[in-house]
C-alpha cells in the first residue's frame, strides 16, 4: 500500500517537474512560496494573543499541532475530494480497471510536492511553541501520538467527504467546506467556542481529539469544560472509530457507483 503510494506520487512529482513548467520557473516559485510561508508565520506570531485563558505560546502549540496534521493530509490525501470531477469526466472508470485501490490512485493523482512548504511552516510553529513552553518532558510522548491521530481523523473526514460524492456528484463545494472547515476549527483553543459546539465536535466528529484533548494533557491543564481526564487519551480510539465508518462508506460508495451513460 505505502510503497505503491510512494511510487505513484513520485511518478507524478517527476512528471510535474519535467512537463508542467520549466525547472527555473519551479525554482522561482518555490522561493516565493517559502518567503510567503515565512511571512505567514510572522503574521501568526504578531496576531496571536492569549485567547480564552490560553497564553500566546499555548495557542501557537494548539495551532501548530492541528496544522501539521491538516497540511499533511491536505498534501497526501486531500486529492480524494476531487472524485466528483473524475466521476463526471469518466476518468474514475479508468481507475477502477487498475489493480490498485482507486483511493490511492485518487490521492496521488497529479501529486505535486509544492504543498510541502505548508507542512514545514506548521511544523516550525509547533517546534517554536514546544521550545518556548516550559513543558513536562514526561508528557511529550503525546505530541507524535496526537499528530498521527490528527492525520487519521482528517484523512477519514476527507474519505467520508469523497464517499458522499458518489451520491451527491454535484455538491463538491459543500463537501469541501466540511473538510477545510474542520481544519480551521481546530486551529484555536476550543474554549473560545460555545459549549454545545464543543460537545458536538467532540462526540459526533471527533475533532476535539486532533489537538484539544491531547493538547490539554501535554500542556498539563484541566479542561475548562470539565471533561474527565481520561478523555485526554481517547484520541486513537476516536480516530479508529472514525476511520472505520469512513472505510465502510467508501466501499459502499464504490459498490453503488453508477459510472456514466456514455
Amino acid at each position: 500500500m505505502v510503497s505503491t503510494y510512494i511510487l505513484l506520487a513520485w511518478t507524478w512529482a517527476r512528471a510535474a517537474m519535467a512537463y508542467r513548467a520549466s525547472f527555473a520557473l519551479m525554482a522561482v516559485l518555490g522561493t516565493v512560496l517559502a518567503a510567503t510561508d515565512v511571512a505567514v508565520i510572522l503574521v501568526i506570531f504578531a496576531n496571536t494573543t492569549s485567547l480564552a485563558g490560553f497564553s500566546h505560546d499555548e495557542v501557537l502549540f494548539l495551532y501548530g499541532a492541528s496544522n501539521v496534521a491538516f497540511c499533511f493530509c491536505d498534501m497526501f490525501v486531500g486529492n480524494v475530494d476531487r472524485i466528483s470531477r473524475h466521476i463526471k469526466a469518466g476518468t474514475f472508470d479508468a481507475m477502477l480497471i487498475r489493480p490498485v485501490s482507486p483511493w490511492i490512485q485518487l490521492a496521488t493523482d497529479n501529486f505535486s510536492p509544492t504543498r510541502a512548504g505548508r507542512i514545514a511552516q506548521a511544523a516550525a510553529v509547533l517546534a517554536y511553541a514546544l521550545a518556548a513552553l516550559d513543558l513536562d518532558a514526561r508528557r511529550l510522548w503525546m505530541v507524535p501520538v496526537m499528530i498521527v491521530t490528527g492525520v487519521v481523523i482528517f484523512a477519514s473526514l476527507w474519505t467520508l467527504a469523497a464517499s458522499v460524492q458518489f451520491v451527491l456528484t454535484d455538491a463538491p463545494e459543500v463537501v469541501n467546506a466540511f473538510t477545510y472547515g474542520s481544519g480551521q476549527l481546530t486551529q484555536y483553543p476550543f474554549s473560545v467556542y460555545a459549549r454545545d459546539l464543543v460537545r458536538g465536535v467532540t462526540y459526533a466528529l471527533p475533532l476535539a481529539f486532533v489537538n484539544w484533548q491531547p493538547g490539554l494533557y501535554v500542556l498539563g491543564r484541566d479542561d475548562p469544560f470539565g471533561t474527565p481526564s481520561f478523555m485526554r487519551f481517547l484520541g486513537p480510539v476516536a480516530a479508529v472509530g472514525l476511520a472505520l465508518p469512513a472505510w465502510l462508506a467508501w466501499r459502499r460508495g464504490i459498490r453503488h457507483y453508477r459510472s456514466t451513460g456514455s
Partner: protein
Amino acid sequence: MIELDRAGRSFKVRREVVHAVRDLSFTIAAGEFVGCLGPNGAGKSTTIKMLCGILTPTSGRVRVAGLDPSRRRTTLARRIGVVFGQRTTLWWDLPLRDSFELIRLLYNVDRVAYRSRLDELTETLGLGDFAAKPVRQLSLGQRMRGDLAAALLHAPDVLVLDEPTIGLDVVSKAGIRDFLRRLNSEQGTTVLLTTHDLGDIERLCRRVMLIDHGRLAFDGTLDDLMATAPGRSTIEEVVTRLYTTGRETAR
C-alpha cells in the same frame, strides 16, 4: 472464461428505474473471439462495465476468470485488459511512454518482461512515432493504439473492448483488426468486443451476440445470424431487420 447468469443492472433515475441490462446469460470459453452488437442504449457498455467490476450487478451472477468482478476487482484487473473506444484509460497530461511506465508500476510487471512486451507492441502497433507525445495531443487513431497497448502490457488472458474501432479511418481500422485477430490466434487471448461496425463482425468474430433492451436477442455464428433472415443478402439488412423487429416486440 466469462460467465453471466441472469445478470442485471438497473439505474434509478429520479423516480424511475431504468433496466439497462436484465436477465442476461451467456458463457464465453477461453480462446473465443466474440462480437457484441446492439442498438444504441441496448446495454452493451453496461455489460462490459459489469465484466471488469466498474459496475456492480443489481441482480444475477457474473464471473470472469472464475472471479466475481465487483468483489475481486483488483485481483481480476491483473487478468483482464479493458479498452473503452470512446474514452481513454490513459493519463491525459502524461506522455504515452510515461503512461506505460505508470501502468508497469501499477501492475507490478517485471522490468524485463515489460521491455520485451513493450517493444513487441510498439512494433506491431507502430507506436514509435508518438510515444513521446502527451496523450491529449494524440489523434484518435494514435490514442486508440496507445490504449490497446496499455491494456495488453500486463499480458491479460481476456481482453474486452467497447467500440474499439469507433471513429477510425479504413487503414487504422484494418490495422487494429489485424492486431486483434493475431492476438487471439497466436497468443490465445479471449476477446470480447462491442461494435456498431458490421465490418468488425464480418472480419473478426466467429461468434456474434446481439443485445437488445438489455436482453440477449441472438447468440451464434455469423452464418446463423444470416440464416435468421432468409432472402436478405447483406449483414446490414439482417441486422437492420433484427434491430427494428426488436423495437416492435418491445412495445
